[in-house]
């Protein structure tokens, strides 16, 4: 039953990490803008996420009269569930995994794709135009980038000959990080994966669905209190989990010298997370049609080419 233990541990750690990842992001963003970020709530503002959580828990719950109540209330929960559930197949160390499914990569992709449903649900159920536009944009963007994401993640699968994340990490332990070698499908595939993950988790330059300068707050425009909190949390969980998956698929997961595997995995995850946020606080955003064009015209064929390149590498290397 150690998997049950790991499940509980992983979820707990994920939730707490998310809270302080939020803090980390605020601090990082602040420092990038010559500011200090939270300093007054607890030492270095470390208690800020707790205060936010307590505040959100107390806020009044408003259900707009024109909204579809059931879907409106269900959407944030589903968003959080799908965001958390993705992490089930991510190995954080040798055996440190909640469910070592041999279709790990597929599980990740499937849940990533599912995220579309609650987001659209939230947008539609709010009966708010900004939310609806945000929801439509979110769906269009997520489905567009799902295809490159699938194709990019197929590269490690082909190289390792397995969909299990543990196997992929093992493969990288024996050979090398896929992002490094074979460089040709490896590095571009990693970048493609990163790009598609950014888009899937709605991060700049792909944050069109919640583009607050246009759509006020996107799908979450009508949400108050903890329901909004769940969206907010899910967003960060999604980014964290995407970083973890990227680390496992392309950066060798827990493999690394000197220190225990868990440290390496967390370090790589955090590194990717910070990278995503540094990019977020640096770039402006694209327009929706430009994004879609980028995905369909460039990234999809590029993904296919990478997949076949990986296959050729495997066939020739194996022969």
């Amino acid at each position, binding site marked *: 039953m150690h998997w049950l233990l790991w499940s509980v541990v992983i979820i707990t750690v994920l939730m707490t990490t998310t809270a302080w990842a939020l803090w980390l992001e605020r601090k990082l963003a602040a420092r990038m803008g010559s500011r200090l970020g939270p300093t007054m709530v607890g030492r270095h503002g470390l208690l800020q996420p707790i205060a936010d959580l307590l505040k959100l828990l107390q806020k009044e719950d408003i259900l707009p009269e024109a909204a579809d109540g059931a879907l409106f209330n269900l959407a944030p929960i589903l968003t959080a569930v799908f965001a958390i559930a993705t992490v089930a197949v991510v190995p954080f160390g040798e055996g440190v995994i909640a469910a070592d499914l041999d279709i790990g990569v597929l599980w990740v992709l499937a849940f990533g794709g599912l995220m579309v449903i609650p987001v659209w649900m939230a947008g539609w159920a709010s009966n708010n135009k900004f939310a609806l536009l945000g929801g439509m944009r979110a769906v269009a963007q997520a489905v567009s980038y799902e295809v490159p994401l699938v194709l990019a993640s197929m590269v490690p699968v082909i190289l390792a000959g397995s969909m299990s994340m543990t196997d992929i990490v093992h493969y990288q332990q024996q050979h090398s990080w896929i992002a490094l070698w074979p460089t040709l499908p490896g590095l571009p595939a990693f970048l493609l994966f990163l790009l598609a993950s950014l888009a899937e988790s709605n991060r700049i330059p792909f944050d069109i669905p919640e583009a607050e300068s246009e759509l006020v*707050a996107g799908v979450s425009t009508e949400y108050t209190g903890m329901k909004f909190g769940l969206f907010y949390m899910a967003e960060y969980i999604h980014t964290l989990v995407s970083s973890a998956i990227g680390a496992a698929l392309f950066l060798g997961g827990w493999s690394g010298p000197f220190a225990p595997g868990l440290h390496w995995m967390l370090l790589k995850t955090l590194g990717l997370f910070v990278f995503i946020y540094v990019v977020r606080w640096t770039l402006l955003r694209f327009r929706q049609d430009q994004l879609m064009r980028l995905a369909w015209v460039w990234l999809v064929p590029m993904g296919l080419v990478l997949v076949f390149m990986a296959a050729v590498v495997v066939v020739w290397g194996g022969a």
Partner: protein
Amino acid sequence: MAVDETARNYTHPLYDTLLAAPGLNVLAGSVDQLLTWGLKNSLWIFPMATSCCGIEFMAASASRVDLDRMGTIPRATPRQADVMVVAGTITVKMAPRVKKLWDQMPEPKWCVAMGSCAISGDFYRDLYPTVPGIDTVIPVDVYIPGCPPNPEAVMAGMLRLQEKIALVRQGLFPPHGSSKEDRPETAKMANPAVRRLLDPARDAAITAHQVTLAGTPSPDTVDSPPLPVDASTAGSADRDLEALLRDRFGVTEFPKDAPPLVDAAFHVELARTLRDRGFRQYVTCVASHWPGDPETFEVATVLRSTGSGSQLAAWRVRVAAGEPVDSLCGVFAGADWQEREQFDLVGLRFAGHPDLRRVMMPEDYVGHPLRRDFASDAPCAPWR
């Protein structure tokens, strides 16, 4: 530990239950402290930034003062905000919207009035379009003086709000003991007559007005503005304006200190002529009301030639009250909004204007405030 229920518009069921249960007072106390701490330290701001103070509010969020240090995040939607910072003048056209956005914020919520305009309406306070202080519309918790308050003062105001939140939860608010009305300063205030109308009757009136306004949302029926006229035939600026006016438009007097007065019949023709002679930029038009006998209106139009040695061309036309002036919309696209504004404020009609609606004042406003016979302190507020 008595909580002053009058100070807030919400109940806290869990806390109330704990308080009611025997022997749980201590627990209730610590839970309350924790919850209050949470409320205090996570104040998400809904910036109701309308004017100058909004810029200083932005400066307060920027790097030098950095409101984020105390955990504030500006939210664009009222649904996720805790504090409405009213930064800037609130007009009667805007006030119902502010009230509505305030209503749309979830409890517990607070309001900070930032700067003179939000507090009292500033020097605009007794003018026709301005609300004399946002506290006549929604309850305000903290007043930050200044015009605009500097960013540090905004921070001070937010810290003061934290203080107040704690005081309210401990039942120590209002701190003065006596009610607001008894305070001697009241009598000395620049505009003491305007009180926060906390009475529910008035809130209901405002709300009812909005609900009726909201009753008929209809797609806009107004057409898009006319296509701009192609002025590509324009030549170079004519320097001999006086000769032109004298020869073609029969102007005889050229006052030293004012633009020449042209017969109203020539208004459009003159504009077109000047445009073709290089005065292609529409600068402005000014209508003025001259009561007396006979009551007249005057419109001064200013055009400009562009580029090196730019020159102004200005003239006036005068019409009797009640008569319209020909619209220049057919000559200059810019005349559209300018003439609308003059119509709205001065009450002069423009013949041939495609879209002569109010532009500054609310659609249902009656009167034209820039007429000389409109008292400069006549209040106007359709919802008042």
